[in-house]
């Protein structure tokens, strides 16, 4: 149908260190100093180790359901690396690597999955919100946090992480729309790992890219190889600049893959081909980075061995801290509810051990008639 064109757009995809080890020297120039690349590789390795030990904790009944991050380390790590330490990180639950980089002690994540709220009692200076269980909901919090940064004229932004599945939720749309229309300094980082539990990305989005979701809002949107930490750092740095200088949000689709099951409660063999997994094994961000370092003579098997040992020690120490944490008194269930505990909640707390309901029939005593404080 011939007619006037009123809008055109395109989506670019960025790759710097590809799965075959090719490095785009132009795009990658001066992006990450070598000593940092090494640190990033070490961080990935620790995170991979964390997954293994967490998995074992779950399998041996010492922890509840746990979602492995394996294969997706680069996206959150590159992001955390590219941002400032006072930028808000608003994660889902596959961003361990980035959160650890920011400084989150590993036992917090373990405590969370051990069914202990103290895993979410994150020190304020880390600027991290708790792992988000209800999919897609945290994006709005990121928009609000970014809004507060802007309102206070702080040089800060908020970056939120979520999966391909999350882009189907209404809250995704509302958050993107608020951010675009109110000019909020937010980075929306979507880890498109191909699956939402057993549902492939094409059921969430039949369009060729998820990145184009951002076009709906006139938002700068870009795709990158999410298993390529250089590409991630590159696009996040640009997004951060845009947020800081222009108060404009960016949508980033980081294309990656979940090498493990959805969680320890899942069995991915029920719904996906082993061949697909094998394909993505070749694209593993950790192996890719190790090869890169090795080729550049920045890494060798001695260093690797030492690192593996250290990583194991670190994670085991964290697991020990998480497992050995003192139990909290049940009263905390009640005390944690409000700044000041209401009468009825206090009654339930104080009588839960002595009375069937946590409230005594005679818990309220006769008292002088209430004063008429204000009458119309």
């Amino acid at each position: 149908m011939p007619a006037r064109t009123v809008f055109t757009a395109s989506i670019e995809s960025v790759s710097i260190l590809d799965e075959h080890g090719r490095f785009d020297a132009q795009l990658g120039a001066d992006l990450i100093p070598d000593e940092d690349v090494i640190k990033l590789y070490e961080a990935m390795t620790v995170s991979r180790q964390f997954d293994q030990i967490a998995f074992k904790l779950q399998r041996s009944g010492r922890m509840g359901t746990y979602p492995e991050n394996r294969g997706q380390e680069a996206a959150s790590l590159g992001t955390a690396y590219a941002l400032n330490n006072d930028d808000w990180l608003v994660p889902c639950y596959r961003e361990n690597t980035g959160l650890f980089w920011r400084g989150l002690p590993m036992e917090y994540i373990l405590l969370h999955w051990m069914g202990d709220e103290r895993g979410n009692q994150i020190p304020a200076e880390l600027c991290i919100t708790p792992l988000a269980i209800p999919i897609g909901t945290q994006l709005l919090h990121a928009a609000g946090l970014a809004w507060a940064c802007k309102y206070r004229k702080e040089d800060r932004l908020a970056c939120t992480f979520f999966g391909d599945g999350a882009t189907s939720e209404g809250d995704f749309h509302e958050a993107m729309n608020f951010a675009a229309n109110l000019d909020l300094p937010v980075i929306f980082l979507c880890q498109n790992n191909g699956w939402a539990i057993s549902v492939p990305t094409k059921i969430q989005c039949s369009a060729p890219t998820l990145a184009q979701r951002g076009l709906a809002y006139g938002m700068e949107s870009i795709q990158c190889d999410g298993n390529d930490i250089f590409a991630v750092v590159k696009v996040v740095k640009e997004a951060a600049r845009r947020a800081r200088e222009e108060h404009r949000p960016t949508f980033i689709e980081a294309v990656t893959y979940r090498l493990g099951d959805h969680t320890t409660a899942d069995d991915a063999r029920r719904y996906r081909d082993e061949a697909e997994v094998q394909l993505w094994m070749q694209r593993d961000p950790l192996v890719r980075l190790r090869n890169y370092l090795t080729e550049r003579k920045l890494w060798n098997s001695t260093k690797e061995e030492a690192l593996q040992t250290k990583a194991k020690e670190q994670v085991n120490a964290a697991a020990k801290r998480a497992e050995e944490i003192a139990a909290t008194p049940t009263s905390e269930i009640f005390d944690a509810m409000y700044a000041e505990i209401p009468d009825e909640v206090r009654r339930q707390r104080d009588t839960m051990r002595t009375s069937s309901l946590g409230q005594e029939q005679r818990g309220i005593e006769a008292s002088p008639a209430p004063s008429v404080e204000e009458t119309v």
Partner: protein
Amino acid sequence: MANLTLVQAINLALIQEMERDDRIILLGEDIGRNGGVFRVTEGLYKRFGAERVVDTPLAESGIVGTSIGLAMAGLRPVPEIQFEGFLAPAFDQICTHAARMRSRTRGALTVPLTLRVPVGGGIHAPELHSDSPEAFFAHQPGIKVVMPASPYDAKGLLISAIRDPDPVIFFEPKRLYRAFREEVPEDEYTIPLGKARVVTEGDELTIISWGAPVVQCMNAIESSGKSIELIDLRTIDPLDTQTIVNSARKTGRVVIVHEAPKNCGLGAEIASRIMEHCFLYLEAPIQRVTGFDTTMPYYKMELEYLPEAERIGKAIEEVAAY
């Protein structure tokens, strides 16, 4: 002192709090240039500017969800949902996040927001503009629920709500927005959350209500000729059990009046608590005069649905005569 409507009292409270505390931001649909569809935020856009009085996109989950983020960052957002019927799309953010963030993080993050919402029937509005959803939010732990029944209370309660360190839903009964005026002090004052108001004292019977029906109760009491104690809850959650129990023990006869459907309404909770705490004092079953267990009808029949004075009067007679 000025003689103000409920709309004006709320407007005044907002102005005074915003001048006092620049962490307060208002956000919602049509609250800016237009001053709100009920004119509650009239003049605030001009006075405080577009950064503090923000017209948002038409998205209730977005309004509450971003308010949660603002609050977690230490601001004091006061979002508005245009009508109570449109709380439903924000239900998830309210119950899943606003109400849970403090307990989830053991206090590391808190959500001091005040969600203003016009509520209730009686103004001949379209569908979903006349509901009374307060019991939904009372059932959700972690969020307070307030509903004033007079201009004086509205101002004092709203200031308390805004200053409260936890999330509060502040319901404003539409039917009372301009129903009457009352002396409201210019000076700031607060009315504590969680404290009911004894509107009239009496010893034959207790009536418990909140919001717009309080006025209907007053009418019913007047024509009953009985000595009736009327309690206006003011705060719906946490409930002021002590004041309720004191009165029920004194009179032994209780009528509860609310607009929401009866089934699992707040009336059930109040009646149950009274029974738990006053079993041996009760002279008659507690009677609930409520909306019916039906959809709130379109406005042609809304007065059949709402607990009007006549229906309350019948309950008074029945309970007194039991």
